């Protein structure tokens, strides 16, 4: 399926919804790994919004990227409860291992705050991480 047909299908899937923009953007981010200029232009036309409005929404939310990630994404929690369990030192420990293997993103809390440091790789969650365990996970990517 070409890109426009794909966008059409995503928009059509949400046609019955009230306030459909976020569900649509979530699906676009999921399907393409980003919400790029083409997608924004298409959505403005399809939903009868200005491009500025669509851009304003897309740029507000951390989850929407302008380019797809080249490598697998590792989301490392850097919020307080994980800080108290050593996530800052962990981030430094794995920096070298991550090079060329994955992109490290910061998230603030994964809701696993009693067993940190925690990370999410794609949709799987990992807890009780330390340098060696996380390095092993990265090497397996």
């Amino acid at each position, binding site marked *: 399926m070409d890109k426009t047909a794909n966008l059409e299908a995503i928009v059509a899937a949400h046609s019955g*919804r*009230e*306030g*459909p*923009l*976020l*569900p649509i*953007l*979530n699906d676009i*981010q999921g399907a393409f790994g980003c919400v790029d200029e083409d997608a924004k232009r298409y959505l403005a036309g399809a939903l009868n919004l200005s491009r500025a409005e669509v851009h*304003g*929404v897309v740029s*507000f*939310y*951390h*989850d*929407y990227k302008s380019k797809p990630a080249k490598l697998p994404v590792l989301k490392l929690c850097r*919020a*307080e*409860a*994980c*800080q*108290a*369990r050593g996530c800052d030192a962990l981030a430094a420990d794995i920096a070298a291992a991550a090079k060329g293997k994955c992109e490290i993103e910061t*998230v*603030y*809390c*994964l*809701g*696993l*705050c*009693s*067993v*940190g440091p*925690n990370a*999410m790789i794609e*949709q*799987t*969650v*990992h*807890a*009780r991480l330390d340098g060696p365990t996380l390095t092993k996970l990265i090497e397996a990517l």
Partner: protein
Amino acid sequence: MRIAISDDALALACGADAVAKAMAQAAPDADIIRVSSWGMHWLEPLVEVDGVGYGPATVDDVAAILDGSSSLNIGRIPDHPFIAKQQRLTFARAGITQPLDLEDYQATDGWLGLAKARELGPDAIIETVTESGLRGRGGAGFPAGIKWKTVADTKGPKKYIVCNADEGDSGTFADRMLMEGDPYCLIEGMAIAGLAVGADKGYIYVRSEYPHAIAKLNAAIQASADIVAPFDIEVRVGAGAYVCGEETSLLESLEGKRGEVRAKPPLPALEGLFGKPTVVNNVLTLAAVPYILANGAKAYADYGMGRSRGTMPIQLAGNLKYGGLFETAFGITLGELVNDIGGGTQSGRPVKAVQVGGPLGAYHPPGDFHLPFDYEAFTAADGLIGHGGIVVFDETADMLSQAHFAMEFCAAESCGKCTPCRLGSVRGMEVLDRIKAGGRAAADPVEILPQMHNAPKQGRSIDDELSLISDLCETMKFGSLCALGGFTPYPVMSAIEHWPEDFGARADMVKENL
């Protein structure tokens, strides 16, 4: 043989799937079921074999667990002190039922509250919720019954129930555990709210960081659609913005807009989602309602102290030996929670600071351990209980870094609508950076320009910087539109007040500047 293992995201993150798989291979005749989590997180993956618990289990422990010789044996789980000491009303099914099993739900008093609500009708439902003393569990502690009454009394053809499941606070996971572990309880609570105010549509706004909760909710909504009809529920997924937990920002986001906070009035109860009267409640608020309807207002209100009635699912997190979910009546002290229940720090070092109420909550020193868990008591101590998260730090914590992080978080998550928050947070980081560097000997090149009439013409000492940041915090506190900018001063100022030595400041100087 009945073997129960949780499939909650936290158990999965600790390796529950691998253990379950190994169990199935080693005991092919056993009945292996996946249940919600008991909330004893240090013991996950917790394996329950015919009522006896073993944890934290790994694949290597499977054989010993099956023949009963494992040293991980904790005895009967309900008798474990961590569970036996709790008063579980909202989390009564935690660890016991299979989250999506309708028979399990029914067998554990499920849908009794909804049946009662249908019998009572709107006025009596609202009266019951008001009398129970239930207050919003999302942070602000507003009485739920009064909010519902406002929506019920507002005329309109269309009204909404919006469940706030954005749970962005670090140190909190009770919403997640409830959505994953007992989704029908939330659905029942929302349906009761719908009956009370005359709404037939509900939205659950869940943060995107919770894929397991989203999947469970969607499955549960589908399976229970006929039971709650004509009430209809839809899950909406956020997109990684902390501020969308603020109720008006959440409504903007649901409408498909930037999550910018709205000025109040109008209250969402009068003009909420798409301008229609809307109840916005936290997951835990709504999930407390089925118990209240089924057992009566008094049964709930008998728990608690002062104006904080009922129970609170408290979340023990950070550097604690026994972290997890502890639901108990209001009134338990902070010290009991940290030392007696939580077992002190995991690292074994002394406790330095405890942040209560998420990233916008104050840092408390052990000197505050006498404080009872109660909305008013924490407000009086310049803190807040928020969504009930407790994050413990040991003596290695640097409170200047924690204060800096509070400002950094505010800057990263600010919706940008008002200046004290959008700019103040960045200026706050800069001031704290300068304090870290020990003050500034020379004047700032911009500040010495002739047109900068009010700026100092020489360098600033740490004490000057501290008075600057308390000024800034004052401005943020009183000049911000919502609590993101308005409450960020709590963690910052509490850190300076209680640990001035981390800021290179003399304690008496700090007291003067505060």
